[in-house]
């Protein structure tokens, strides 16, 4: 868990400091510096028409864009998408879960819809939604979050059903505490630990799915520097220039691995019962 946390912290710092990490302006590229190998010297044209000497640490792509710069900036996109996906899925899932757990008449229909949603493979929902909506980061986040909602809903619902039988909730009910207050004050705080764990795994899934969408060409627009887009761009030339795919691929794998390790660790610390089961 410490390793996961440390790696993630480093990635967050990288994302925040992206403009100062020896990267050139994202809009700059030079056709003369196409397909450079990692570490090669090349030049970039500034907006004023000046030529700058620049070392392409991870080489350049077929447009002459610096892969190092795109990968570093891609960290921002990936982390934002991952965290936002987790937050959106958790927020909606918590509301649905509380409703299903508390309102008996809603429980059946809502959970049947969730069952149906779970039967459709997550990535297909995301692909179809993004294809329809097009658009930017927000669309992608929502499209990735939707298939994750049923799992959160189920988790919250099962927690609610257990917790509402606890003596302190019964006491609150018998004192005439309004339902929304019981949900907010007594039930929600007890769901926090498992939800944090779940949120971590959704975050990992979100980062991965965004990369897959971009890689398949259905995610964020190709000019947005994301790891998936860099890899998609590198596909055609993979045989000669494998580094176009390897560098963003390594970043992606390490990030997802770090988040997953963090999630496993959090689960073991926050939720010992669950740790034993898995």
């Amino acid at each position: 868990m410490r390793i996961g946390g440390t790696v993630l912290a480093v990635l967050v710092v990288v994302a925040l400091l992206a403009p100062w990490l020896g990267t050139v302006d994202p809009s700059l590229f030079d056709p003369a510096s196409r397909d450079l190998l990692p570490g090669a010297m090349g030049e970039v044209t500034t907006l004023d028409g000046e030529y700058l000497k620049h070392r392409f640490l991870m080489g350049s792509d077929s447009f002459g864009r610096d892969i190092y710069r795109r990968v570093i900036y891609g960290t921002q996109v990936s982390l934002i998408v991952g965290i936002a996906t987790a937050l959106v899925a958790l927020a909606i899932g918590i509301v649905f879960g509380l409703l299903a757990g508390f309102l008996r008449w809603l429980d059946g229909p809502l959970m049947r819809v969730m069952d149906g949603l779970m039967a459709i493979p997550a990535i297909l929902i995301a692909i179809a939604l993004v294809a329809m909506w097009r658009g930017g980061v927000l669309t992608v986040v929502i499209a990735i979050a939707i298939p994750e909602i049923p799992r959160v809903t189920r988790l919250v619902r099962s927690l609610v059903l257990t917790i509402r039988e606890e003596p302190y909730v019964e006491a609150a009910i018998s004192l005439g505490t309004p339902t929304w207050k019981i949900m907010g004050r007594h039930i929600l705080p007890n769901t926090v630990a498992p939800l944090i764990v779940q949120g971590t795994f959704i975050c990992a899934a979100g980062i991965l799915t965004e990369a897959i969408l971009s890689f398949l060409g259905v995610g964020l627009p190709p000019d947005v520097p994301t790891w998936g887009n860099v890899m998609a761009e590198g596909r055609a030339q993979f045989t000669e220039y494998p580094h176009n795919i390897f560098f963003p691929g390594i970043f992606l794998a390490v990030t997802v691995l770090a988040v997953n390790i963090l999630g496993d660790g959090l689960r073991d610390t926050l939720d010992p019962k669950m740790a034993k089961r898995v």
Partner: protein
Amino acid sequence: MLNFLLRRLLSTLPVLVVVAVLVFLMLRLTPGDPAAVLAGDAATTDQIAEIRKTLGLDRSIPEQFVVWAGHLLTGDLGQSYYYKTEVATLIGQRLEPTLSLAALTITIAVLVAVPLGVLAAWRFGSWFDRTLMGFSVLGFSIPVFVLAYILIWLVSLKLGWLPVQGYKRLADGAGPWIHHLLLPSITLSVIYIALIARVTRASVLETLGEDYIRTARAKGLPERLVLVRHALANAAVPIVTVIGIGIALLIGGVVVTESVYAIPGLGRLTVDAVLARDFPTIQGVILLFSVVYVVVNLLVDLSYVFFDPRIRY
């Protein structure tokens, strides 16, 4: 048993109906007029209105759903906007590569993961166990397309053992077929191996603590038989369950793997249809994949009787 079978079959119906409604709504509530897409750029407003009428798009959404669902039940998935053929025919053409890929992947995954999981449980806490669990987290985390490119680079480009891309039909001979399919299947099986090995380990670990295992050992049964006949056999239900649940992972992986290895299957069809905004095809493929997922998990439920005779329906 028959009673249970009927009830279990009936219980999948609501799920399938919900799936159908969701898939229908997902694409029918999209901005953009399918009739205009079908008619092409040069069409007049009258022509578009005509097409809208033949497609039934002038009716209300619930009416459209009833018509659409009625067609579904007869196996009519509609016309592809892009390929201008029946979606059902299109899917039929793309079925073989995907089924081959999935079958080989599951075979590899089960053959590798189950023995590894049993060994890890047997030597619980050893370096082998810890290494395997480490690799399993890694297997979950490494994106399937990154793994695909690493393997292509290593096995196909550097070593030259297997072809980089493409697909050969089974009808053209089993040799070329498996030759082309091996690398994609290995790529796709990694995440599956991680999943199954983990569950096998946990499940076998639990049975190894049972009294009958001690009895089996006490009566001098060879350790191999203890592990396979007693521990694994009793641990089978969770393993089969996770294989069923993993079908969802597999379907997601198929879309990506087929794209990387240029395999003309259903996954590739999905991506092409999305890029062309060919909604009837997207609908058809998503429906098919979801039905497969539901049916496989139904079969998994039914297989419990076979794996655990104590379970009676």
